[in-house]
């Protein structure tokens, strides 16, 4: 019996180890998985948009290129916090030339720590058994994930609901030789959502309003991101896109947080601008939004134009100053 058990366990370990290697390979081949794609393909954009779902669903690099002439790529991922933003940038820089500009989405939600999270399942294919920068951030953000070190394949088993599909899709992409992702410029155009009801839920959950907390951990990762930009000679620009005016009365310390971000950006070497677009006219009407912080396609088209114009103007002013 002991011999049979030993054979069974050994076979299992071998199979799991093999599966782990296959998943490592197929996930890297999945061109729809942004973390893998930016790390394995040449994008070489001049401009990057980085942040959580708001820039992901709002900032269209093609429109930006049309208005500014600069090649852009949307590096944002859903619900991502600054730590995840940092890893995405790190992975991008490993395979691509440094961008000139990086637009980082920063708002009260970003520094609060309860709205965005670290999505570990975007990165297991980059985590080995040895120490690495990626691993250190993953472990800091998701401490329970260290279990993966004890057993082969456990790093995938832990998040298999997210990873299995990506691995199978990676296999498909590998077999088909696919190299262009479903969203080639990283921008995910929202479709089919008319109104997501988040405003109503938010008002119900916080009838007396919500006070943002300034999370030191988020602030720390924001600082790391700025450092990373500085080290790589990337001009980082913090920005806040339009939000629906209806929500503003429920965000009790929004101005205070905005000032804090502005002061912080100003203090940081005086070369990190903070652009806020919350006074745009589209903020008055739900016609331009499908959620509190997300414009619909109609709203995005207007915002992208305004944003690009503002950038052009800023660039002009900046060059004349120089």
């Amino acid at each position, binding site marked *: *019996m002991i011999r*049979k*058990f030993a054979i*069974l366990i050994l*076979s*299992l370990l071998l*199979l*799991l180890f093999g*599966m782990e290697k296959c998943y490592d390979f197929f996930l890297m081949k999945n061109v729809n998985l942004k973390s893998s794609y930016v790390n394995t393909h040449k994008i070489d954009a001049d401009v990057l948009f980085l942040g959580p779902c708001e820039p992901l669903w709002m900032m269209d690099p093609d429109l930006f290129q049309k208005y500014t002439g600069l090649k852009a790529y949307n590096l944002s991922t859903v619900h991502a916090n600054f730590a995840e933003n940092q890893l995405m940038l790190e992975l991008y820089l490993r395979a691509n030339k440094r961008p000139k500009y990086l637009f980082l989405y920063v708002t009260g939600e970003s520094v609060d720590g309860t709205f965005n999270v670290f999505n570990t399942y975007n990165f297991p294919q980059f985590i080995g058994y040895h120490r690495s920068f990626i691993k250190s951030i993953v472990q800091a953000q998701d401490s*329970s994930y260290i*279990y993966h070190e004890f057993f082969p*394949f*456990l790093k995938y*088993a*832990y*998040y*298999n*609901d*997210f990873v*299995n*599909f*990506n691995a*199978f*899709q990676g296999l498909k992409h590998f077999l088909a030789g696919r190299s262009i992702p479903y969203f080639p410029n990283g921008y995910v155009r929202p479709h089919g959502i008319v109104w997501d009801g988040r405003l109503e839920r938010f008002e119900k959950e916080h009838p007396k309003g919500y006070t943002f907390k300034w999370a030191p951990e988020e602030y720390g990762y924001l600082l790391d991101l700025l450092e990373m930009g500085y080290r790589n000679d990337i001009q980082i620009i913090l920005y806040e896109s339009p939000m629906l005016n209806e929500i503003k009365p429920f965000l009790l310390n929004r101005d205070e947080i905005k000032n804090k971000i502005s002061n912080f950006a100003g203090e940081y070497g005086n070369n990190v601008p903070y652009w806020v677009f919350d006074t745009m006219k589209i903020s008055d009407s739900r016609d331009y939004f499908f959620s509190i912080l997300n414009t619909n396609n109609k709203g995005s088209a207007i915002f992208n134009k305004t944003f690009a114009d503002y950038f052009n103007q800023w660039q002009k002013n900046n060059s004349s100053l120089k």
Partner: protein
Amino acid sequence: MQFISPLFLCFLPVVLALYYVTKPAFRWLVLLLSSLLFIGILKPEALIVLVSFSAFTFYSGKLIQAGRKYRTFIFYSALVVQSLSLILLKYMESEQGVLKLVFEEEGYRADVILLAAGFSFYTLQHMAYLADIYYDRVQADTKPLRFLLFSSFFAKFNSGPLEKAETLIAQFDRPPVSETLFLQGVQRIVLGFFKKMVLADRLAPIVSRAFTAQAHHGSLAVATSVCLFTVQLYFDFSAYSDIAIGTAKLFGIELSENFDRPFASLSVSEFWRRWHITLIRWFSNYIYYPLVYHFRKNGKLAVITAIFATFLISGLWHGIGKTFLIWSLLHAFYLSFESLTKNARLKWRHSVPATFYRAFSILTTFLLVCFSNLFFRSADMHQAKQLLTQLCSSPFGDQGFMNGFVSALAGGGYQEALFNFSVTVFLVLSFLFLEKKILARANAGNRGYLQLFILLVLIFTFGVFKNASYFIYMQF
């Protein structure tokens, strides 16, 4: 300590090693100490409750056996104390719990559940023990520590199976485990982990979508979720039983089976002979049969009365609340109907093709059980009413098949969500289809290494490791 936890996976081999290096005469002591540790890790205060009640039952048993004049008084007093404690616990656990009203503390309910971990189960075993002594079916046990082990044995502590003291205590002194029994144990444990992590926990989010955000669902999605809850409950609880039975087998102890493919039942009464078998056996032996015997002169009425009384108590045992009351009344109604129409149904059975009868009976039984479970799962009557209203609405709400049904259950129309949903449905259906063979192999002992291997691979590939949920029956 939870069965599905890294801690348990470390705990079990250590206890096993200690068990086998200890002299056979003292092995029960290893089991006792490890059981107390198991409970202490779950909630230290639960140990005090357990030891107090075990001592109370043990010495009550001795007094009942020794006493001549006062044995009836002692027996009924002990039963009253145990019943009241159980009712108090259920009341504290319920939303209207008295302490909740006083303290209004968050997480209070979870605290009570942990404080009284296993209480519902060992109290029933204690009651049975006292009844058996009172009716001279067994002798009172003479060794208090072994009785404590009977109450606390970690393999069955949290949610059964319910065992009789004399059968379990006798096994604590048995010779070492056989190779076959050990292998059976491993296979049952792995099967339990598979059922819980791959089937029950993958079904859990699909089910909870209907029970938490039901406002958006059409009738077909709600009906499917309610049915899936029944399947989830089965996998969840039978997984617990498999792990409990398997764990006990590793120590050479055989616990009673708790499930026997209940979804293959041709009637609700058969369903109850296949579902939570040890609890139903308890209710039958200590409530149903005594009542039928007591009212035997009333013929069918005695049976109906006994059915209603048994299910009302069963509902109360599950929890205090209108939803459990309706659940129990529905089952009492089903069984009474079956009892009253037995001859007519038998006649009908012979008049239709056997395959049709079988398919029709299985489906009807399943749907009746699922309907009752709508109340079992609902947090309160408000939710139950809301779900019933939705069951009467249009099949896909105001959307089409994909959005109103598939995406509603899958948690979105994204490819990942649809992929995960499809995998879950495929695994669940495949398992139900192959269940008889899988269980037979798991119980075969020397065969089944390949099955063990496949189950382990499936656990690693599709099991829920992150945010694994508690066993549902822990709350009872």
